[in-house]
């Protein structure tokens, strides 16, 4: 392995680039870009297997959503392997995962959501007053606008009108959901 690859200076940058491409879906992070920016002294032929190895390690860690014990065990095993990583590289990878874990996990969750997500919610309550000839006066109404959209697509806006009765009906349903969540979150 070229001396430059063994060093850990540029590895942090490489992992960031890999995360951008693999998890956050940013276009344009090519192998050549990473090599020329971070490891300009290394030939493309030598760089490729190195890149693939780091990508594989990062994907394994993310896929298993490793906690720090699992991470340490995994990385230690990688340092003992033939053609594995150096202890310095293990330290860089460990540091990277600890600071990016949450964001990467969120990206993976978003990638696996194929229905629309709720992007925004706004509302107001109108006090409707009818004409003096109408029997019904002061019937307040809640107007709610939901912004929903699928990953990578434009939002759709759904505007709903609720009277007090309807608001309470929905509220009852939401409390059922809350109860289900509590049951789910209870330790087994």
């Amino acid at each position, binding site marked *: 392995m070229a001396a430059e690859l063994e060093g850990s200076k540029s590895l942090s940058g490489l992992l960031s680039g890999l995360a951008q491409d693999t998890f956050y879906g940013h276009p344009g992070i090519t192998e050549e870009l990473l090599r020329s920016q971070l490891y300009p002294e290394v030939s493309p032929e030598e760089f490729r297997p190195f890149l693939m190895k780091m990508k594989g390690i990062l994907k394994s860690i993310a896929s298993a959503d490793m906690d720090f014990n699992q991470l340490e065990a995994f990385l230690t095993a990688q340092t003992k392997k033939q053609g594995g990583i150096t202890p310095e590289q293990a330290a860089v990878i460990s540091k990277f995962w600890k600071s990016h874990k949450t964001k990467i996990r969120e990206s993976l969750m978003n*990638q696996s959501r194929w229905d629309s997500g*709720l992007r925004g919610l706004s509302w107001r*309550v109108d006090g409707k007053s009818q004409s003096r000839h109408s029997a019904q006066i002061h019937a307040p109404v809640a107007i709610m606008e939901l912004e929903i959209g699928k990953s990578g697509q434009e939002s759709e806006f*759904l505007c*709903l009108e609720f009277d007090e009765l309807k608001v309470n009906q929905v509220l009852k*349903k939401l409390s*059922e*959901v809350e109860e289900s969540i509590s049951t789910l979150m209870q330790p087994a």
Partner: protein
Amino acid sequence: MEESSEPQLDAKSKVTNQLINFQWKLGMAVSSDSCRSLKYPYVAVMLKVADHSGQVKNKSFEMTIPQFQNFYRQFKEIAAIIETV
């Protein structure tokens, strides 16, 4: 998800719909091809809505648990306000 502590609704949708039915499901995403250990719960909602002409449509979406809790909290706020108006 945006929070509206000061509701200011400038509706982007021209049509106001009535909610006919609200169905929900609490799901748990276990695993996927990009992540073997997803383990996250989510709330899936199916709304049946009708516009002024009576045309009925289904709209579905998902929320993470924190998003749901925000949604629930806002509904409680609406209920509290609508009661006093």
